[in-house]
Structure formats: structure tokens, C-alpha cells
């Protein structure tokens, strides 16, 4: 896309204050997640570094070991510093969310482009598969896949990809169908360019805007779905706690007043998802063709 178009997009994006707030929050969480090893006061996966005596301390308590530090957000039942656990949890949530969205985007877009460009039987087969996947609720498919395959980061990513690919396929197919009729495609074909080249270099760049919106929304939904699955006990293993698992573990302590074990991870998760959705929402508004015409 040309730099003028990018500047126009940026300006219309900036018109919504909410979206800017969302983008700021999201960048902040991204920064925290990426730099977690540098920023976190304690490595929560290192079981040797945990002190069971420090378990279930409220926010602001002091570290019982050396050197003297404070647990800014308290500790959980295993003595993990909540702040570090949240940072690493954000890291995992973002990792799972982004990688599953990217892989689903790659697979779904290829399938969608091929379906839209080739048409005919290929189109029907691919779209039937997508319809079957879309007619089932995502959480059901993910639950069954995880129940069969067990826990682990890779398996969650596969389950999330299986749940998401159809959205990308549908979007790309729609865009491909529209673009296929335009003159530049005919011109390219008359020039004798191979189908592959036409699809990759000519069709694909013009089908990107709706894809951006879907991708943004899917990242948020992937993060939320992963948290839900972890909460139910089907997601990531206990050794690499994601935010959902932290919340689940803290649930039993809520009623006894130790709110910090659940509330802080929950707030972090909420900030992450809300910020992504705010950005995605504004993207969708500015890229919506039907409203753009008026």
C-alpha cells in the first residue's frame, strides 16, 4: 500500500480516541510481555527460586529472602510473585494468540484465495469444510481437540488454528471473488503470467484490508479462548501458567478474601483483550466499504 494511503488510514484511525487508548494499552502490554525476562522481579517457572513460606501474601508484603524486595501484587499459593507471573502469563497468552492467528491466517488465506480464484469444485469443497467448522461453536471444537490431545502449548495452538482458519478462508474467498473480475487480473492473464504469480503478486495485496480486521479480532478471540480453556483445566500445563490458569487457581481463594490471586491476572487479561478489540473495532469502521460510500 502506498504511503499516502497509510497516512490516510492512520488519520482516520486517530479520529477515535478510544481506539488510540486501546492501541496505547496494547503496545504497553506487548512491551511488557516481550521484555518480561528483563522486567520481572522473579522467574515464576523456576521452582527452586520459589519460597513456600511466602505463599498467599497480600500485595505490598516483603520478600523473606535476600535481597529485600516487595511483592507488589502479592503471591499465589505456591509463593510465586503475582507481578512476575502475570508478566509471563501475558507473554504466553500473546504468544499463543498471535501464533495461532498467524498460522490460521496463512492456511485460511491460501485456501480462501485458491477457492475464490479457482472457483468450481475446489471452491465448493473448501467452502463446505469451512461451513462445517463454522457451524460448531469454537469452544466445543477446541474442548474436544484438547480432550483428545492433552495439554501443551503446541496442542493449544493447533486447536486454536483449527477453530479459526475458516474465518480467514471465508474473507479471502469473498475478496478474491470480487477482485477476480477486475481488469487488472485479466490484463495479467493476457500477459501470460502464471496463475500463481497472479494470485500472489496481484490479487493478494488488494485483499489485505478486510483481512486486517479479521486478524485483529481473531487475535483477541484466540487470547480469550485460550484463557477460557486454561480456566477449565484443558489448556496449558501448570508449569507454564497462562493468565487463565492463574485465575482458575485463585478462584478458590476468592471467597476467603485473598482476592489478589485472581483479580490481578483477570485485570491484565481484560486490559489485553479490550485493547485489541478497541483497535480492531476502529479498523473495521474505517475499512468498512458500505459505510465508506456515504
Amino acid at each position, binding site marked *: 500500500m502506498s504511503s499516502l494511503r497509510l497516512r490516510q488510514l492512520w488519520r482516520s484511525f486517530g479520529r477515535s480516541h478510544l481506539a488510540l487508548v486501546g492501541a496505547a494499552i496494547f503496545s504497553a502490554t506487548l512491551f511488557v510481555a516481550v521484555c518480561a525476562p528483563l522486567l520481572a522481579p522473579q522467574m515464576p517457572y523456576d521452582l527452586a527460586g520459589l519460597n513456600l513460606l511466602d505463599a498467599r501474601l497480600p500485595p505490598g508484603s516483603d520478600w523473606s529472602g535476600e535481597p529485600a524486595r516487595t511483592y507488589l501484587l502479592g503471591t499465589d499459593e505456591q509463593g510465586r510473585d503475582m507481578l512476575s507471573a502475570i508478566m509471563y502469563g501475558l507473554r504466553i497468552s500473546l504468544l499463543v494468540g498471535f501464533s495461532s492467528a498467524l498460522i490460521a491466517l496463512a492456511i485460511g488465506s491460501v485456501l480462501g484465495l485458491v477457492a475464490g480464484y479457482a472457483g468450481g469444485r475446489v471452491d465448493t469443497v473448501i467452502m463446505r469444510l469451512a461451513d462445517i467448522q463454522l457451524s460448531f461453536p469454537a469452544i466445543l471444537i477446541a474442548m*474436544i481437540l484438547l*480432550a483428545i490431545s492433552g495439554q501443551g502449548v503446541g496442542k493449544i495452538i493447533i486447536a486454536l488454528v483449527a477453530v479459526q482458519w475458516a474465518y480467514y478462508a471465508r474473507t479471502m474467498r469473498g475478496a478474491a471473488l470480487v477482485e477476480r473480475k477486475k481488469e487488472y487480473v485479466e490484463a495479467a492473464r493476457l500477459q501470460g503470467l502464471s496463475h500463481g504469480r497472479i494470485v500472489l503478486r496481484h490479487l493478494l495485496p488488494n485483499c489485505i484490508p478486510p483481512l486486517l480486521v479479521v486478524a485483529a479480532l481473531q487475535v483477541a478471540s484466540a487470547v480469550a479462548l485460550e484463557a477460557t480453556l486454561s480456566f477449565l483445566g484443558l489448556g496449558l500445563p501448570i508449569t507454564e501458567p497462562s493468565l487463565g490458569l492463574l485465575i482458575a487457581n485463585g478462584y478458590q481463594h476468592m471467597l476467603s478474601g485473598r482476592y489478589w490471586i485472581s483479580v490481578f491476572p483477570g485485570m491484565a487479561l481484560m486490559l489485553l483483550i479490550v485493547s485489541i478489540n478497541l483497535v480492531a473495532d476502529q479498523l473495521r469502521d474505517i475499512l468498512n466499504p458500505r459505510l465508506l460510500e456515504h
Partner: protein
Amino acid sequence: MSLLVFVGVFAIGSPIDVLVSPEADEAERERVSRTLGLDQPLWTQYGRFVVHAVQGDLGSSFVHNVPAIGLIFERLPATLELACVAMAMAVVLGIPLGLWAGLYPKSRSSKAIMAGSIVGFSLPTFWVGMMMIMLLSVQWGLLPSNGRGETVTVAGVPLSVLTVDGWRHLLIPALNLALFKLSLVIRLTRAGAREALLQDYVKFARAKGLRPSRVIGVHVLKNILIPIVTVVGMEFGSVVAFAVVTESVFSWPGIGKLLIESINLLDRPVVIAYLLIVVTMFVAINLLVDLVYSVLDPRVRLSESAT
């Protein structure tokens, strides 16, 4: 579908290991294995399953030792009740709010509604549920935090919507479940209203001098209702599936909770029975939605009669 799950559940571990106490000796294991039919090769087990399934018998639960179908149907009314009330809340609250936001898009209240809807579908359901329990049950002590209320049996089906105590238990879980769909309905209605207002028939109706409330209440509403109805229908299946989370948080005795327990206990017949019943329900719902859509949308009928 059933073959996939059958093989899959078998693959994650032999149910024998979970069910039989570790102290039991080899003879005991053999006995349990033979009773449950798990000593046969996998294909034989699947064959027997299919034969029984066609006759309506989906096997007995490994854990509870009662027919799996019976277990599911026993818990189904609870889940369906929760899902229906949640969906009803989403629609009854969502359509007016969405309509308002669509009619006056620049107003402060509309922007607040839209921001609220984004937050509504971003918040993870289980966290909202926990927060609600904390606030409404623990801090303020207004409503009970878990379980289902008293039920009244109607035509053999125990329903708790008919008792006041039932509603006290139903309110928070249903609201929690409804939140996501509420946001969806608000956004749909708003988008539909905004598009419909730009159409010619609205200008014509206004030019004819009809009261604004009639223009909106009758003409606009009827036209935007069609996509809303279809989405609501399709999302109902999703609500039933998502009830799993709400049921876990609120200890609501429905099929979702049963499913999670069965997955963790490797109770294969129950998992398969759940899947089969839920899949059948989805297919039926989708079919119904298609039929309703073709009845509601005159364009579909007209194009069919023209050919």
C-alpha cells in the same frame, strides 16, 4: 464423528486405570474390564457401540454406571433453561439498546453503549462470573452464588423458571452468559439500523408523514429483524456450548459441567453421548433457522416463485 471421538478418548488413556483403585490386583482389573467391555479390541467395541446406538442405547457411564443418555437428559433441562433465559435477556435488552445507538449515533449515550458493548464481548466470561459472585453474593449478599433453585415439574421436566427461588439462582448465571451475546445483538442492531436509515423506504415513509415511532417501530424494525433472528438462532448453539464455563463457575448442574468431569475422568460413553446429542441439536437448530429465514425474508420467497 463418533468414530473420531471413540478412538480419541481411547487413545488418551485406558479408563481402567482411572476407575479401578491402584491397590486392586490383576484379577479385579480383569473383572472390571470384562464387565465394561473394555477387553475387546477397539473395532469390536465400536461396532457394538453403533449397534446399540441405533437402538437408542449409548452405553453406560463408566463412572456412574447408569445409561449415558439418561445422565445427559437428566441434566439437559438445566442447561437449556440457562441458555434460553440468557438468550432472551440478550435479545430483550440488546435490541432496544442497539436501536437507540443506531438512531442517534453521535450522542454520548450511544458512544457509551458502543464502548460498553466492546467491553462486554472482550471480557472473558469466567472472570465476569467470578466478579459478579464476589460483588453480588459475597460483598452485598444479595443473591445466592451457586446451584440451581427449586424446581417445578412441568410435563415431567423440572423447571426452575417458575419459582421465585429459581429466579434468584438463575439471574446471575444467565446474565453472565448473556453478556457476550448482548454485546453482539447491540452491535448487530445498531449496524442494521444505521444501514436501514439510509434506505429510500424510510425517506418515503417520513415524507408520507408517518409518525417517527411508527416508521422505526414497524418498518425499520421488521427489516433489520431478519439478520438478527438468524444470528440469534445460530448463536443459540454457541450459548449452549459456552454454558460449560458458566456452569463451572456457578456450579450449575447442567451438561457442561458433566462434560468437563467426564473428560477429566475419561468417562468415554458420556463424552460421546454428549457430543452426539449436542451435534444433533446444532443440526436441528441450523435447519430451523434456515426455514425461519426463508419464511421471514420475502425476497427469498419471491425469487423462488419467479423461477
